[in-house]
C-alpha cells in the first residue's frame, strides 16, 4: 500500500513540484518549486521579489487551479493591486473569484510598546484564516523579515518565524518567502536561509554601463537537479520571463530539406540547392558590403514560397529597408501587405539585452515565422558585454533551432579587422557562414562573397565577386588572376583583354590558313606554268624532230635522184645502198 502510494507520486527520486507558470523558470527548475515546502526568494531592493510572488500566485490560481494567499508585510493591498495591474494581473478579479486572498500586515512601531514574551500566533491565525477562505495551496510572505524592524526581541521572532515555516510545511502549502539581501554574500538580513533550506532562489538587479539587467539564480534546490547558471530575466507587461541560457540538450531536429537563398548563383555555390531549413546562417561583412541585400533576397525567396518572415531591424527603419531594396529590384512591400513579412524595428539601446531576447521570443512565438532575419546582430553589443551578447546569441540560436526556423544573422565587421577572428564568438554556433568583403584593387572597392563554411553540404571554395544591380544581386563568372579574384574594372578589363586576345588568335589562325592557301595556289600556279613550259618545249622538240626527219628523207631522195641522174658513179651507188640499210634497222 505504502509502496503503491509512493509510486503514484511521480517517480520516487523526483520531488513533487508545483509549477510556477513563470515563463522559463519551470524549465530550469525542471518543473517548478518544491511542492508543499517553502522557497526563499532573496534579492535586493527592486529586484522583483514581490512580483515573483504575485506571479506565482496568479499563475497558480489561473493556470493550475491552486488558489493562493499573499501576506504583504510591506506594500498595501491597493499598491499591490495597482502594481500588479501594470504587469497585466487583475488581482481584484481573482480576489472576487475567491482564488486569491490578500492581507496586509502592518505594524506601526510608533504606536506600539512591548513588554515581555510574545509569540506570532496572531499571524499564524491570520494566515490560517486566509488559507481557509480560498482553499489556498500557495502562500507568499512578502517580506516577513520586515517584522524584525517592527517587533522587539529578535530571538523570539527568529524562533517564531522558524515555527511558521514548519507550520506551512505541515499544512502542505507551497510557500514563497521573500527576503531582502543587504550584502552580496548574505541572502537575508536575519539568516532566514537557515530555516528555508529546501529551495533558495536569488534575484539580482545590476546596472552595468547604464544598462540594467536582472538575473536569477537557483542557489540551492534540495533533492532536485536544476540549472546552476545565472539566468537573465525580465519584467514586462506579461510578467516575468526567465531566459534559460540554452536548452539543456542539443537534440533539435535536423531537416534535410534545402531552401533557396534567393540568389541562383549562390545556391549554385551551395551544392546547387541552397541552405538547409532550420539552419542558422551568418552573413558577415564590413559596412556597405551588401549584407542587407543578401538577406533581402533570402526573405523575398521565402515569401515567394509562402513562408512567413520576421525581420529584426536594428539599424534601419522598415520603410527605409523597403525603399532601399526596391532600388535593387526586390519589392518587399507586397509581402508586408500579405502579412508574410513583418518588421520589428528598434534601436538596440532601447532596452537591455534580455529585453531584446524576450521581445524576440515573444514576437517569434506570436508570428510563427519560417525565416528570421536579425540585421545586424552586432549592434546588440552596444547594450551588453561581449559575454552577454554571446550568451544571448546562444539562447536565440537554440530557440530558433528548436522551432526549426531558418535564421539569417547579419554581422557588421569592423573594417580592416580580420573577420574570422572577430566573429569567433558566434561563428561556431552557425551552420553556414557567408563572408562578404570589399576588396580594394586599382582604385576601387569591389564586393566579393565567399562561403566560409556550410555544414553538411558541399560548397564552392571560390571567392566570387558579387554585383548589386537594379535587378538584384548577380554573381558574375569568376576571373582568377595571379593576384586573386579579379573584380570590378579589373575583371572587366580582363574580360576585354581575353576577348582581344581571342580575336587576335582567331585572326592569326585565319591568316595562317589564308597563307597556306596562297602558297598552295602559288605552288599550283607554278606547277601549271612548268607544265606549260614543258609542253611547249615538248612541242618544239617534236616539231624540230619531225622537221629533221623530213629533211633527211628529202636529202636521201635528192641524193638518189642525183645518183640516178648521174649514174656514172658506182661508188656513189654503194654509199647510197648502205645508208638506207642502216636507217631501216
Amino acid at each position, binding site marked *: 500500500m505504502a509502496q503503491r502510494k509512493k509510486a503514484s507520486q511521480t517517480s520516487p527520486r523526483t520531488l513533487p513540484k508545483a509549477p510556477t507558470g513563470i515563463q522559463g523558470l519551470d524549465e530550469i527548475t525542471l518543473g517548478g518549486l518544491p511542492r508543499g515546502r517553502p522557497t526563499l526568494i532573496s534579492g535586493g531592493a527592486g529586484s522583483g521579489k514581490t512580483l515573483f510572488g504575485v506571479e506565482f500566485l496568479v499563475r497558480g490560481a489561473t493556470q493550475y487551479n491552486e488558489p493562493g494567499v499573499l501576506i504583504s508585510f510591506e506594500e498595501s493591498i491597493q499598491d499591490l493591486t495597482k502594481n500588479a495591474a501594470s504587469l497585466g494581473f487583475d488581482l481584484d478579479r481573482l480576489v472576487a473569484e475567491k482564488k486569491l486572498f490578500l*492581507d496586509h*500586515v*502592518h*505594524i*506601526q512601531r510608533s*504606536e*506600539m*510598546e*512591548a*513588554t*515581555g*514574551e*510574545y*509569540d*506570532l*500566533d*496572531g*499571524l*499564524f*491565525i*491570520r494566515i*490560517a*484564516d486566509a488559507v481557509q477562505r480560498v482553499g489556498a495551496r500557495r502562500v507568499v510572505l512578502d517580506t516577513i523579515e520586515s*517584522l524584525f524592524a517592527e*517587533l*522587539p526581541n529578535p530571538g523570539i521572532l527568529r524562533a517564531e518565524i522558524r515555527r511558521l515555516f514548519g507550520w506551512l510545511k505541515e499544512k502542505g502549502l507551497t510557500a514563497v518567502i521573500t527576503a531582502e539581501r543587504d550584502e552580496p554574500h548574505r541572502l537575508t538580513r536575519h539568516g532566514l536561509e537557515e530555516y528555508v533550506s529546501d529551495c533558495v532562489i536569488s534575484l539580482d538587479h545590476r546596472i552595468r554601463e547604464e544598462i540594467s539587467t536582472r538575473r536569477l539564480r537557483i542557489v540551492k534546490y534540495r533533492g532536485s537537479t536544476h540549472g546552476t547558471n545565472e539566468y537573465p530575466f525580465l519584467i514586462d507587461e506579461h510578467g516575468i520571463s526567465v531566459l534559460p541560457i540554452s536548452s539543456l540538450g542539443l537534440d533539435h531536429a535536423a531537416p534535410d530539406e534545402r531552401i533557396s537563398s534567393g540568389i541562383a548563383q549562390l545556391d549554385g555555390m551551395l551544392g546547387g540547392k541552397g541552405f538547409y531549413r532550420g539552419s542558422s546562417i551568418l552573413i558577415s561583412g564590413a559596412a556597405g558590403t551588401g549584407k542587407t541585400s543578401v538577406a533581402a533576397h533570402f526573405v523575398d525567396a521565402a515569401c515567394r514560397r509562402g513562408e512567413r518572415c520576421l525581420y529584426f531591424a536594428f539599424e534601419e527603419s522598415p520603410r527605409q529597408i523597403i525603399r532601399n531594396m526596391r532600388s535593387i529590384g526586390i519589392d518587399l512591400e507586397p509581402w508586408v501587405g500579405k502579412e508574410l513579412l513583418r518588421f520589428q524595428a528598434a534601436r538596440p539601446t532601447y532596452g537591455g539585452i534580455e529585453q531584446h531576447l524576450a521581445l524576440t521570443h515573444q514576437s517569434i512565438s506570436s508570428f510563427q515565422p519560417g525565416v528570421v532575419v536579425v540585421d545586424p546582430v552586432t549592434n546588440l553589443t552596444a547594450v551588453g558585454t561581449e559575454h552577454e551578447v554571446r550568451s544571448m546569441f546562444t539562447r536565440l540560436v537554440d530557440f530558433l533551432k528548436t522551432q526549426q526556423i531558418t535564421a539569417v544573422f547579419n554581422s557588421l565587421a569592423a573594417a580592416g579587422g580580420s573577420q574570422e577572428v572577430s566573429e569567433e564568438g558566434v561563428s561556431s554556433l552557425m551552420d553556414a557562414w557567408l563572408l562578404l568583403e570589399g576588396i580594394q584593387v586599382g582604385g576601387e572597392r569591389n564586393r566579393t562573397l565567399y562561403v566560409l563554411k556550410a555544414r553538411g553540404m558541399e560548397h564552392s571554395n571560390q571567392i566570387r565577386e558579387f554585383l548589386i544591380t537594379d535587378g538584384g544581386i548577380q554573381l558574375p563568372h569568376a576571373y582568377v588572376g595571379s593576384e586573386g579574384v579579379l573584380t570590378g574594372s579589373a575583371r572587366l578589363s580582363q574580360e576585354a583583354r581575353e576577348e582581344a586576345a581571342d580575336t587576335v588568335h582567331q585572326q592569326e589562325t585565319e591568316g595562317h590558313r589564308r597563307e597556306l592557301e596562297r602558297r598552295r595556289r602559288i605552288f599550283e600556279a607554278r606547277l601549271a606554268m612548268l607544265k606549260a613550259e614543258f609542253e611547249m618545249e615538248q612541242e618544239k622538240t617534236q616539231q624540230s624532230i619531225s622537221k629533221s626527219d623530213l629533211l633527211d628523207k628529202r636529202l636521201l631522195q635528192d641524193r638518189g635522184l642525183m645518183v640516178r641522174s648521174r649514174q656514172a658513179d658506182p661508188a656513189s651507188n654503194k654509199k647510197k645502198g648502205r645508208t638506207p640499210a642502216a636507217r631501216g634497222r
Partner: protein
Amino acid sequence: MATTKTPAERRQPNRRKPRVYKLRLYVAGQTPKSIRAFARLQTLCEEHLKGRYRIEVIDLLVHPQLARGDQIVAIPTLVKRLPPPVRKIIGDLADTVRALVGLDVQKAD
C-alpha cells in the same frame, strides 16, 4: 467568543474628565502567556485605573477574522482603543512600567 468584563464601578462622576479606558486583549486560546497577560492587566488596571476601564478579551482561535482589523500579529497584544491615540502593547506585560507608559496611564494619574 468575546468576553466583556466590566468591573464593579462604572464611572467616577466627580472626576475632572470621565476618561474611560477601553482595552482589548487579543489572545489565542488559553496559553500560559495569555493567562499571565490577562492577570497582569487586571492587577494593573485595578491599581491605576480603578473604576474607569473596560477590558475586552478576544480569542482569535474563535474569531480569527478580527485579527486583521487591529493588525494583530503577535500574541498577546493589548490594544488601547480609548482614549486616543490608539496604542498597542505586545507581550505578557511583564514590565509594568512599560505597560503603563504604553497605556499613557502614568501621566493621567
